[in-house]
């Protein structure tokens, strides 16, 4: 049963990964990518990492891929132009693929050579045997790797603030600005009033 599920998910993932690259329509590519994410989540459930599987779906399928889809749908991409750039960018792509492959081989090799010892020597943040992987991840991230984890959080926060600062433009002068507090504070008695403006004068809102 598990073996069957594994081969099903793995085959679907490889197929959808390949179709992500080969699909002619970029929107189809993104949809195949989403299917690949989903099957990766299935594989994670099979190895017992259900927390990571759900996070993969929530974060990548639910948020990141939606934004991809959003952007790809909005842009009217010229296929001929993209194909023209293929040979130029191919060496870079191959280099990235080789690096990723090397990292995978290195990681699996290191894991095979001997289990990585998780947890502190005094055992304060060792993985909790028999607990679900939510508790285990929590114990590790907030125990052993607290400072690394928080540093990662700070880096993400800085990146986020940076992105907002770079893209935010003050537009008050060019467009009508609305004051939400003022809108909310209106009540029916103040919302209407009788005026008799002179011809060609108009009304101040």
């Amino acid at each position: 049963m598990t073996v069957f599920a594994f081969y099903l998910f793995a085959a679907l993932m490889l197929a959808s990964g390949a179709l992500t690259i080969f699909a002619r329509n970029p929107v189809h590519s993104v949809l195949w990518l989403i299917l690949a994410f989903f099957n990766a989540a299935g594989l994670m459930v099979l190895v017992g990492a259900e927390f990571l599987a759900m996070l993969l779906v929530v974060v990548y399928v639910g948020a990141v891929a939606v934004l991809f889809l959003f952007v790809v749908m909005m842009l009217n991409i010229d296929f001929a132009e993209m194909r023209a750039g293929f040979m130029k960018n191919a060496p870079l792509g191959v280099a990235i693929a080789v690096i990723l492959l090397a990292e995978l081989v290195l990681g699996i090799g290191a894991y095979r050579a001997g289990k990585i010892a998780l947890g502190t020597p005094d055992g304060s943040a060792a993985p909790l045997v028999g607990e679900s992987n939510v508790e285990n991840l929590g114990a590790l991230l907030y125990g052993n790797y607290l400072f690394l984890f928080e540093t990662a959080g700070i880096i993400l926060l800085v990146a986020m603030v940076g992105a907002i600062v770079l893209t935010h433009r003050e537009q008050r002068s060019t467009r009508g600005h609305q004051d939400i507090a003022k809108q909310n504070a209106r009540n029916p008695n103040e919302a209407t009033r009788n005026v008799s403006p002179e011809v060609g004068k108009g009304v101040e809102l």
Partner: protein
Amino acid sequence: MTEFFISLGMDATWAIVVASICGILLIALPLMLAVAMIIYVDRKVWAAINLRRGPNVVGPFGLLQSFADGLKVFLQETIIPSASNKGIFLLAPIITFTVALVAWAVIPFDAGVVLADINVGLLYILAISSLSVYGVTMAGWASNSKYPFFSAMRAAAQMISYEVSIGFILVCVVLYAGTFNLSAIVEMQRGHGFGFVNGYWFNLLLFPMWVVFFISSLAETQRVPFDLTEAESELVAGYQTEYSSMAFALFWLGEYANILLMCALNTLLFFGGWLPPVEIEFLYWVPGIVWFLLKTFFFFFMFSWVMATVPRYRYDQLMRLGWKVFLPMSLIFVVVISGWLMLTRYGGAA
């Protein structure tokens, strides 16, 4: 159920498979019936608030109206626009419908009455509900028509915005319950208020979160006042504009199944699921599933009530509410609740 099939002389693996299929049918078929009836209830409540009669012709009190509608759309011709992207156009309603059904796998109807009692049930719900945006987005894009496309853009932005604050609200509940398992979350609510009231709503820190959650679930299911994706005054019918026949019906069924799911989540997370409202012995004579369904129905009534009485939001107001009001509020409550639990439950020792 697995034991029952093993006792019939089945192999253990086969018994699991057969039991799962039976469980799926036991959830999906009543759910479809419930969706048909709840559409009728929705229209009746809406009509009563508008001082109309509502559906009253087909069957006694118009009870069979939804089935008549179902038969009607079933007999209609499926029209596929020639400019559409056919595969995705047909896939979109199927995805909407399927996603609306699979989320029910982890909903506990009573103590132990749940198809998949998994550790990360709440995360599973969050993951599945984040998928429902794809049906709408794909439908809007594949229709190759401008109003569905606007609707798809709106849907994507709206659902991502409100999912963020829903995520933080779920974190608040999980902090209190100490688990992601939905059955365990319900059990933790037993006697939460002075050992008497069952449910997290009876808590000064969690009640505001329930209010935010209720409004966010309106936005997440694209109900009035947040039905910007199918605003008929601006977008014809939004992403459904080009759909007809069963494809349209699948959107419809999926939408209502999602609404029921959100009502069930309100029940499970804040109102004690299958537990009676208060800890009194004779209230336990009523079966748990009845309490669960009654509470879910109550929330559906509130959804209908809102639909009949509240005007539609403007799009910028919707975005402001999501990002500038709910997100900071739920974020602050996560910090406050973890601090409060640190002081009271974990004795202040880090």
